C-alpha cells in the first residue's frame, strides 16, 4: 500500500497534464475575463469622470449665465427706475407748467379786472370830482367841509380800490 510502484509515473504525467488542461480551459479564460472586466470598469469610471467634468463645466457656464441674467435684470430695473423717475419729473414739470399757465392766465385776468376797476374808479373819481366841484360851485361851503368831503370821498375810493386789489391777490394765490 505504501509501496511506490510504477504507476507514480502515470500519476505525475496525469497531474502535469491536468495543470495544462486546467490552465487552458479554466485559469486563462477566467483571468482574461477578470482582466477584461476590470478594464471595462476602469473605462467606465474614466468615462464617468469625463462626463462629470463636462457636467461641471456646463454647471459653471449655467451659473455664469445666471449671474449675467441677474446683472442684466438689475440693470434693466435700474434703467426702468431711471426712466420712471424721468417720466415722473416730466409729468411734474408739465403739471407745474400747466399750473403756471393757469396761474398766469388768472393773473392776466386779474390784472385786466384790476385795470377795468381802475378805469371805472377813475371814471367814478372823475364823476365824484365833478360832483364835488358842482356842489362846491352850487353851494358855498366852507373849505373845511370841502376838504372833509373830498377826503371822505377819497378814502372811500381807496377802500374800494384796496378791496379790488385783494380780490386780485386771492385769485393769484389759487
Amino acid at each position, binding site marked *: 500500500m505504501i509501496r511506490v*510502484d510504477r504507476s*507514480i509515473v502515470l*500519476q*505525475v504525467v496525469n497531474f502535469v497534464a491536468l495543470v495544462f488542461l486546467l490552465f487552458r*480551459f479554466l485559469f486563462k479564460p477566467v483571468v482574461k475575463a477578470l482582466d*477584461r472586466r476590470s478594464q471595462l470598469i476602469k473605462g467606465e469610471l474614466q468615462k464617468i469622470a469625463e462626463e462629470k467634468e463636462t457636467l461641471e463645466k456646463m454647471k459653471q457656464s449655467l451659473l455664469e449665465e445666471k449671474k449675467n441674467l441677474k446683472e442684466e435684470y438689475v440693470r434693466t430695473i435700474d434703467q426702468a427706475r431711471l426712466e420712471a423717475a424721468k417720466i415722473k419729473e416730466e409729468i411734474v414739470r408739465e403739471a407745474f407748467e400747466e399750473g403756471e399757465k393757469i396761474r398766469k392766465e388768472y393773473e392776466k385776468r386779474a390784472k385786466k379786472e384790476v385795470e377795468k376797476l381802475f378805469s371805472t374808479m377813475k371814471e367814478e373819481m372823475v364823476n365824484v370830482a365833478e360832483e364835488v366841484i358842482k356842489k362846491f360851485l352850487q353851494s358855498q361851503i366852507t373849505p373845511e367841509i370841502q376838504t372833509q368831503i373830498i377826503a371822505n370821498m377819497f378814502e372811500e375810493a381807496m377802500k374800494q380800490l384796496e378791496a379790488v386789489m385783494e380780490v386780485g391777490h386771492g385769485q393769484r394765490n389759487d
Partner: protein
Amino acid sequence: MEELFNPQVFFYFLGLPVTKTVVSTWIVMAFLVILSWFITRRMNPVPTRLQNIVELFVEAIINLIEGMSPGNGRKFLPLVGSLALFIGTASIAHLVPGLKAPTSDFNTAFALALVVFFAVPFYGIAMRGVRGYFREYVSPSPILLPFHIISEITRTFSLALRLFGNILGEEIIIGIFFLLSPLFVPIPMMLFSVFTGVIQAYIFTILTVVYISAAVEVHEG
C-alpha cells in the same frame, strides 16, 4: 479492505500499471476539465452563477498567493489552483460509487508532492537565477547545506504522507462503518470526509504556496 491498499490493476500501458487509482484520476480529471470548459465556454462581463463561483475560486487562490508572495499571484495560479482543485475533488471522489479517491493511494499523493518538489526549484531558478536560488542553500553558512537538502526531502514526504494518511484514514473508517452497518450509519462519516478532503486540499495548497514563495523570495544583502 485489501482493495484499499492494493488497487486492482486493469491493464498495462507502456509497461506502467494502470490501476483503479489511475482510472479514478482520469475520471476526476475529465470531470474537472469538462466542467471548467462548460463554465468558461462563454464568459460574460456580467457573470452567471457558475461563472461567479469559478471567478470566486480563482480570485481566492490569487489572493492566497498574493498574501504570501506579493506580485506573483498570476504566475503560481495554474499550479496552485490545479492542486487545490484536484485534491479537493479527488479527496471526495470515493463518495461516488465505484470510484476510489486517487489521493488515498500513496502513488498519487507522492506524485503530487514530487510535482511540488520540482516546482519549487523551477520557480526559484526562473525568478532569481541559478546562483540566486542555490545561494539560499549555503546561507548563512555552507554547513547548513545538508540540512537544507534534508528539509526539502522530508517536507516532500511529509506533504505526501499527510495527504495520503488523512484521506486513507477517512476511507478506512468509512469502510469499517460499511462493514458494521451499510445503511445510514456511514453517512455522518462521509460528510465528515468531505470536510477532511477540503481541509487537506487547503493545507496542501497553502504549504505549496509557502514553499514556493520562500524559494522565490529575494533576500537583501
